């Protein structure tokens, strides 16, 4: 009897903190109910015109047909009324129906004799006369997930990710013969390269984020991606250091963390390239892919620098190369077959967070430590700037 009472009492004690946590929320619900029931404190909060937005997914083009996927990102349901393609009202079908609930999706199918290589502006008019437009910059049949297209996207990923990273590792024998000053300079240059890539990816993530519907909170996605990835990689790096192994094994860990970071960054690059190919915009991508190959060769260099003096095994090098390069293939698949703008923002942000963290990690573990030991402050400065300038100049040449 007494034990039961105690159990109940202790149960109560355990539940009490949760009850106390809930109390403000219950009060909050009351306040909201009051506000709504008094029609917004007496202000007429209903807008004069309805606020309607939709987020278009990828346009799928088949011979004689355009298919648009869209999501209603407005506060209320949206009803589709008519479709206009390049200044002509065009018959269409919509599934599951013209009435799209909030956050619901619809597929608009239009039988339209589009012309290979030309540009189209499709305007979907809601019943409140709000026009939602989406442009198809270069019309071409959309790639589908067949063995052939998967293989093509795989090849693109191999070209952009694996090959340049592995090629970069061929600098390893040369690195072994460099003096400590030159090594420090190269490591600082790697930091510079990574910072530049991170800034570029962040800017891109923010730009695409700005095009998302308010519902998706693009900038928030960027923040979550950058901060989350940074802290995750940071936690992994600290945990490995905490194990207290030899200096050589710590350098190997650093190389692995760099490879993971670069891999995450290549995921975003692969996504962008795959998506560009999928919408047909990337015949011009042939040129851009060459640019990616040139820039990414520096990534391979960055990965092997920490272990340059340790005579790493071929197996380790292959593993590092694959960690850094394979995500580009995954990115190309995702971008080419299921591209979505919110996903693109997230991938770019993850890539940015990863390279920032790796730059910080190299700086903390290698550059700053060496600079303090050897009193070569301008070597670090020169290296970082040189790294950034390399990407700046290659960018000027290939863009």
């Amino acid at each position, binding site marked *: 009897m007494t034990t039961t009472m105690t159990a109940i009492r202790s149960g109560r004690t355990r539940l009490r903190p949760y009850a106390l946590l809930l109390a403000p929320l219950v009060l909050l619900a009351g306040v909201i109910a009051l506000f709504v029931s008094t029609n917004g404190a007496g202000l007429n909060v209903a807008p004069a015109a309805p606020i309607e937005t939709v987020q*278009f997914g990828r346009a799928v083009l*088949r011979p004689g*047909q355009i*298919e648009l996927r869209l999501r209603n990102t407005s506060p209320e349901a949206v*009803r*589709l*009324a*008519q*479709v*206009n393609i390049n*200044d*002509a*009202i065009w*018959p*269409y*079908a*919509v*599934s599951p*129906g*013209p009435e799209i609930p909030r956050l619901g999706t619809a*597929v608009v199918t239009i*039988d339209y004799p589009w012309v290979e290589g*030309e*540009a189209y502006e499709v305007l979907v*008019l809601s*019943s409140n*006369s*709000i026009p939602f*437009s*989406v*442009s198809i*910059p*270069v019309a*071409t*049949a959309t790639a*589908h997930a*067949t063995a*052939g*297209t998967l293989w*093509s996207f795989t090849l693109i990923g191999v070209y952009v990710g694996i090959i340049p990273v592995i090629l970069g590792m061929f600098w390893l024998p040369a690195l072994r013969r460099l003096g400590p000053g030159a090594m420090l300079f190269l490591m600082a240059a790697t930091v510079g390269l990574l910072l530049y890539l991170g800034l*570029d*990816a962040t*800017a*891109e993530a923010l730009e695409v984020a700005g*095009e998302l519907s308010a519902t998706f909170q693009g900038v928030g996605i960027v923040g979550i991606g950058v901060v989350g990835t940074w802290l995750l990689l940071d936690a992994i790096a600290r945990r490995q250091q905490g194990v207290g192994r030899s200096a050589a094994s710590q350098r190997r860990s650093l190389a692995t963390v760099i490879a993971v970071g670069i891999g995450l960054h290549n995921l975003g*690059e692969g996504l*962008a*390239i795959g998506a*560009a190919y999928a*919408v047909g*915009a*990337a*015949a*011009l*991508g*042939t040129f*851009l892919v060459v640019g990616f190959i040139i820039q990414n060769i520096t990534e391979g260099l960055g990965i092997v620098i920490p272990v340059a003096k340790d005579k790493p095994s071929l197996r380790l090098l292959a593993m590092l190369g694959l960690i850094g390069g394979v995500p580009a293939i995954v990115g190309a698949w995702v971008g080419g077959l299921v591209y979505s703008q919110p996903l693109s923002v997230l991938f770019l942000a993850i890539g940015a967070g990863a390279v920032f963290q790796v730059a910080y990690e190299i700086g903390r573990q290698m550059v700053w430590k060496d600079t303090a030991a050897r009193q070569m402050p301008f070597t670090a400065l020169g290296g970082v700037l040189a790294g950034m300038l390399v990407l700046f100049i290659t*960018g000027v040449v*290939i*863009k």
Partner: protein
Amino acid sequence: MLKQLLQTLSPRPAADEARAWSRRRFIGAGLGGTSLLGMAVLGTSQDLAEGSATPGSPAATGGAYGRSHPGAHGSGMHPMPTVVGEVDHEKNGFHPTKMLTDFDGGVVSTLPSGRTLREYTLVAQNKAIEVVPGVEFPAWTYNGRIPGPSIRVREGDRVRITHLNASDHPHSLHFHGIHPGSMDGVFDMRSGVVAPGGRYTYEFDAEPFGLHMYHCHTAPLAKHIAKGLYGAFIIDPKDGRPTADHELIMVMSGYDVDFDGANDFYMVNGIPFHYDKHPIRLEVGELVRVYLVNALEYDPINSFHLHANFFHYYPTGTSLTPVEFTDTIAQMQGQRGILEFRFKHPGRYMFHAHKTEFAELGWTGIFQVEG
């Protein structure tokens, strides 16, 4: 670099440079061979779209591909611009097909002098009009219709028009014709406009004979006209015109449904694509007279083109002798003219603005000629 790639994916009209590139290279890169799959998918997804549409939806009401004149412009395989669905004419309160021949002679009486008096009441009122299926336009109308009543009088008649303003904005009535300044609908009506709830009576002699128009002349003028305040004003010659088998009124105009100062739809007699979905029936050899008025706002020029036929054209209708035998004429805003033609062969013949953009945005129709 990412920037360039992503720009091509953005919903903005970007990538002009991308257009300049031939994507044949890209197709050659191994992404070809998708067309077969695409065609296979085409059939199924369409079935799905139509099968799963909710009742009353465009897809379900047969508006999507099942046009009301099957076989027009070839088989259903070849899509043509048109709207999906049908507007609710009953709710709109007017029907473009009936409007074609809906000439309003007014309330007729004889003055002590022996002249004919024709009296009209035009009420300016706000009204939501379903201009294309699913889209209601907050219109301003005369007597609840767009265009307003087609006023038809005879040269020398006395015309008395009472203008009531039942809307919440000031309006006016400006008739084309020859009349005193106080009857012109711009000055001398107390404050120059008819205030909400107010009225003004216009009275003048009907001259000269021809095809004219009337419209609101309250500033901002473009807005008052674009919202729907216009109509045809026909003054028949004293001795009339030769008898025609069909006399049709066609008032050309447009709708700017998203208020960006540019028309989203074009049409004759208020409803885009109406005569495309519901052809006008004629017979071979019949004399057809069309009273064509251009009340289009925002665009400077409108036009009329008749397929497989030529017509005699009487600009402004002020002469009984045609000036041109043609198949295409242009009218600037406020211009109008009378067309006369007979079809020699049976068949389906399009008539539309020869500014093809206007045609594909609604100003298109069909004459169905029986042998």
